[in-house]
């Protein structure tokens, strides 16, 4: 062919090799965007998701000290519930809103009932609005930590224990916590163990 001499061939190969490496790197970068996004969201509360706190890790004593400092401040927390893809469950908060002091540990309950004739495994997904409040909304106990299995017709009251961090920006006086129940079969999602892995990877990436 007329592509020229050997040195030309070599430099063509060199350029091609280099560019192929770039292609592979960028392909991986596409996937890396997932944990990067997760980390960013957690750091800045971008999509209203919580900071995950494992049970008992939260220092309740320290939180109670903050209560004193913030006695003059109150925050209204609203609760709401949704079901994804018309999941045939009754699902609602048992209190629609509570007023709390920052640092105070509160417990509220959600009620859920499986209206279908079959056993349903569902995952509750929390979301907080405004988004920047998400990282100051810490849950100590939550039914969203694990998948919930409901037998046909089964009803449960599910507790949620939470603390609003005293560092919550001053201009936020009301925040809303929304839960959406997804049927794991319908959503075709990973097991909780896999979800945890993803979250941990994201956490480490941060």
């Amino acid at each position, binding site marked *: 062919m007329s592509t020229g001499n050997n040195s030309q061939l070599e430099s063509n190969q060199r350029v091609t090799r280099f560019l192929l490496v770039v292609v592979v790197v960028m392909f991986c970068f596409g996937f890396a965007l997932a944990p990067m996004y997760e980390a960013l969201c957690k750091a800045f509360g971008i*999509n*209203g*998701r919580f900071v995950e706190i494992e049970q008992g890790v939260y220092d309740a004593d320290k939180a109670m000290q903050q209560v004193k400092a913030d006695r003059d401040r109150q925050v209204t927390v*609203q609760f*709401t519930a*949704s*079901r*994804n*893809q*018309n999941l*045939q*469950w*009754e699902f609602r908060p048992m209190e*629609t*809103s509570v007023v709390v002091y920052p640092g105070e540990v509160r417990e509220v309950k959600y009620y859920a009932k499986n*209206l*279908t*004739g079959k056993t349903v495994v569902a995952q509750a*997904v929390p*979301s*907080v*609005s*405004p988004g920047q409040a998400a990282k100051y909304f810490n849950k100590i106990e939550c039914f969203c930590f694990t998948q919930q299995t409901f037998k046909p017709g089964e009803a449960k009251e599910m507790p949620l224990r939470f603390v609003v961090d005293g560092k919550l920006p001053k*201009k*936020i*006086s*009301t925040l*809303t916590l*929304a839960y*959406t129940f*997804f049927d794991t079969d319908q959503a075709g999602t990973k097991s909780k163990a896999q979800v945890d892995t993803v979250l941990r990877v994201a956490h480490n990436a941060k």
Partner: protein
Amino acid sequence: MSASKTMKKIGSLLCAGLVMLLPATVFADYKLNMTPSVTAVGQDIYNLHMIILWIVTIVGILVFGVIIYSLINHRKSKGVTPATFHESATVEFVWTVIPFIILVIIAVPATKTLLAIEDTSKSDITIKATGWQWKWEYEYLDSGVRFFSNLDKASNEARQVKSGKDPRKVENYLLDVDNPIVVPVNKKVRILTTSNDVIHAWWVPELAVKRDAIPGFINESWFKAEKTGTYRGQCAELCGKDHGFMPIVVNVVSDSEYSDWLAKQKKAAADADAGAGKTWSKADLMARGKEVYEKNCQACHMANGEGGGPFPALKGSKVATTGPVAAHIDLVLKGKGMMPPFGTQLNAVDTAAVVTFERNAFGNNTGDVVQPSQVSK
């Protein structure tokens, strides 16, 4: 306000001027410019839009003016000899800096407006808007009022493929719903958006709110309408087949009208609960069932119950005639295949009514009367 009015006028003229191709009088009745808003923030957005529109128009006139002058005068047929300049550091520097300065001028009001828009604190009412394929569900978090809002019946009939109905004769075609949301005037209304399935977007141009509704997440936005009236909008994010047919209607009313409405809604909900316990007459069930059918079932099973394409006929079908009533109820509540479950959208009365209707309409004439008490959830 007169300044902004003048601006509005000039803005419309400006836009009209841009279509000089066509006689200006043709456009007397048509909206050429951004919909003015009834909220302060919306008016800020409108003014910001006008500022940018003015800037680009002036820049456009200048640049296009130079080009047109050049096209007319610097042509070979005029016998000119081409100049030979091909760069000038000064000129190039100047025309890099000028756009930059203009951008800074735009950025200042843009930043101010944006900060105002994103301040959702201290709201008076919170409404959760949940997008469904293809309708909206509203929940007043403070008062517990909750309802679905579907495309209104007249529009829904006219919008069917080859419906034979003239959309021009339908009032507010595609922009009307059966249950509008009602909010008080001069109150800060916080809108939370989320979704039951795919991403939707809640948009009312006159309230200057557009916010995506994302499944599993909650978003917020707000408006404070300064004028009573009816404001209409649509879903703005492609959400599947009937994306174009899930409008939004907001009635902004006085405080007292709002509390009346709220009381009525609460009473209606209580009545529905009470209705579930009592025994209904066949005529009442048929009338109510027809309404429920038209709203929920007709799009697929058609008005004559004959279905079409992938949608099965109800007319003469086993489920709706000889099959057991319980199975029929079950199908309505739980859905099957492409048919969505209606269990969480229809209460016991509605379910009983629509099943009664389907078993007696379209010549099915089974004579069955289904009572709300038979509908166990």
